[in-house]
């Protein structure tokens, strides 16, 4: 459990890494030693804990609170080959006014699109406060040369993206070239400028929880603002146990460095019930500080309408049919 050692020697150097963490990223072998020295994750235990948290019963006022919070955390996403300016404009409108029939309904956190759609989204969203997030770095596979990935990122930033969702090179990670993955994240972070960087692991391809924990630390040390489970293109995408391991990682990282990193499960979260399970987990594992759109997001497309339906049900006591909610 090298985390202890790191805790003891951690300095509160603002921005940069503490000497101990900087040392861990000084060479491929040092990084490997550090990542493989992280406490292991017992699969059975992690899954049992996630399932246990999933049995919390969130009712009445707590449910109202959770639904509004979840809506504010949604990164409303369209990442399709068939995306057009029209589709993106419609999505952006929905992001600003998720429920046209109810002015008290909060807007979502961001709209998530491909780089070529950033300008369209930006134009529609204007100064609404809804961010534009763009995937980049040869999303979703990440199989391109570094300069192409950086150009992809810069394109999106120049078009006005507030947030960049990059993918890591899973091939490099799985073959143990951790420093290569680390340096790529550092380079993309630099290319982001003022935009916030979310790092996607594609946990469905990393497969083990030990890998998820290692990837989390690697990305956080490289300067990620957010760590994100999946592209949504690979199954399984976000799961509760994977998110549990990532929440433990950001919690531990703050203990060591004082810096907070956000978490974004993406893909497969479709119902209010699921979203609330995630919020309970955030609350009880990372803590209330993370219960904010600045620190926790849902990458989702269909989740929003279920949240809206449940919200209307809570407020009116009746379920409305799906035709009463916009399809965008």
């Amino acid at each position: 459990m090298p985390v202890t050692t790191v805790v003891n020697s951690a300095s509160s150097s603002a921005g940069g890494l503490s000497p101990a963490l900087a040392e861990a990223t000084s060479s491929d072998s040092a990084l490997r030693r550090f990542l493989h020295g992280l406490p292991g994750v017992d699969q059975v235990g992690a899954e049992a804990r996630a399932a246990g948290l999933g049995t919390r019963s969130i009712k009445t006022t707590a449910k109202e609170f959770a639904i509004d919070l979840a809506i504010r955390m949604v990164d409303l996403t369209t990442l399709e080959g068939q995306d057009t300016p029209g589709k993106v404009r419609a999505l952006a409108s929905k992001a600003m006014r998720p429920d046209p029939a109810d002015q008290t309904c909060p807007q979502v956190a961001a709209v998530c699109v491909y780089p070529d759609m950033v300008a369209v989204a930006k134009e529609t969203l204007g100064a609404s406060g809804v961010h534009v997030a763009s995937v980049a770095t040869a999303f979703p596979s990440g199989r391109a040369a570094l300069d192409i990935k950086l150009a992809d990122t810069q394109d999106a930033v120049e078009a006005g993206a507030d947030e960049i969702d990059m993918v890591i090179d899973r091939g490099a990670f799985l073959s143990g070239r951790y420093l290569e993955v680390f340096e790529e994240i550092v380079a993309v972070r630099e290319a982001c400028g003022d935009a916030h960087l979310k790092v996607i692991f594609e946990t469905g391809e990393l497969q083990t929880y030990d890998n998820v924990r290692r990837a989390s630390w690697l990305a956080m040390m490289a300067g990620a603002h957010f760590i994100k489970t999946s592209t949504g293109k690979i199954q399984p995408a976000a799961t509760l146990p994977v998110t549990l391991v990532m929440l433990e990682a950001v919690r531990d990282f703050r203990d060591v460095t004082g810096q907070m990193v956000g978490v974004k499960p993406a893909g497969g979260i479709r119902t209010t019930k699921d979203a609330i399970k995630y919020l309970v987990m955030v609350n009880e594992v990372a803590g209330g500080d993370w219960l904010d759109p600045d620190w926790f997001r849902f990458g989702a497309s269909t989740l929003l309408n279920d949240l809206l339906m449940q919200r209307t049900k809570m407020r009116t006591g009746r379920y409305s049919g799906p035709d009463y909610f916009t399809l965008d």
Partner: protein
Amino acid sequence: MAPNEKAGTVFEYAPAPESRAVVDIKSSYGLFINGEFTDPAGGRSFKTVNPATEEVLAEVSEASTEDVDLAVKAARRAYTRVWSRMSGRERSKYLYRIARIIQERARELAVLESIDNGKPIKESRDVDIPLVAAYFFYYAGWADKLEYAGFGPTPQPLGVAGQVIPWNFPMMMLAWKIAPALAAGNTVVLKPAETTPLTALLFAEICQQADLPAGVVNIVTGAGETGRAVVAHEDVDKVAFTGSTEVGRAIAKAVAGTDKKVTLELGGKAANIVFDDAPVDQAVEGIVNGIFFNQGHVCCAGSRLLVQESVAEEVLERLKRRMGTLRVGDPLDKNTDIGAINSAEQLARIRELSDIGEAEGAGRWSPPCDLPAHGFWFPPTVFTGVSQAHRIAREEIFGPVLSVLTFRTPAEAVEKANNTPFGLSAGVWTDKGSRILWMADQLRAGVVWANTFNRFDPTSPFGGYKESGYGREGGRHGLEAYIR
């Protein structure tokens, strides 16, 4: 990092109480003898209360020696005339039927268990009652296969079993006792604990509902006197007891010199051993589950945490932070993690031993938590700086109180873990498979859990070494205690 950092956003869980409407508690209960509820001969009764509120739930009959005699006679009659003559296949039908009814009435049983015992509905609903059904299903499967259980070609039942069970898992202990006894062809007289008789009485109704032949199961409620009468009755062939070591000793004396067969499942002071290479977050969960599950009213609770000194500080920090998220309160609230202490008597014992721990110089810590004004409550508590010489490291507290000790090497961990008169269970947390096997070999405990704790399964035998008792319950081994 300070435990219980002030949360940025406060996510308050609204009360989520399970409805009590599903249970129908009568104002008074008779004894279940020969298939009928009957009034006790002495006419005496006692009250059972809801430990979370101190509300009186019902008047329950106190069985006298005379009543116990009637129950044993009924059991003997049912044994001789019906149950021992019935084919295994027929017996298994009854057991399957009981198991199915338990599943159908699971919610009712869970709510009643939580009301009478104080355990959180989360546990009675997700652990106790599903396991109760599982034990009946499992032993139902054995009833027609006893010839192949490895106890000879013609295994025979013993006769009438006198069974005395504790208050910590009222229904589960009932299942552990009754299911194998009936499967093997015995009939039973069972005495539930005086503070938790209600689910056993509901089980009596289930026996009626299942058309179980009269006298096969008899339930006599009462306290120590009644228990002694069951154990001492000369027509009882087999005694099965789960409870304190003190009472277990008395039972062993009482049956000495008779030809009664005995199984005793007694106290424990289990070591939960965390090595420096343990999966730390899961180990913390295991520590919490080990000692705070069922308010620590668990004979196999991991009440001694042995943690490798090199990681002790980190593990403790994480443990305290985790303890800060435990929700103590209304057992019927679906979000409650820790319910009520079962009785005023038990609460007094936990308080006494905790005060002794403090007086002996151990560091006491509990997360801030508001305890309800009525009922019996004790906050989750951890004692640090505990050594083998402390009483809280030696005596069974049977409450949500953890003693933390450290060790340096695997050999020292084994030495400390085994340095107790008990030997019921132990836990080992390490990523190294070979060490798990080595530890399991060295630990003198009936159950050794690796990278988990407090897991039960009907296929797995359970029982103790040394003062934790003798005999095994559960699995194929559990049949042996009811077969000749």
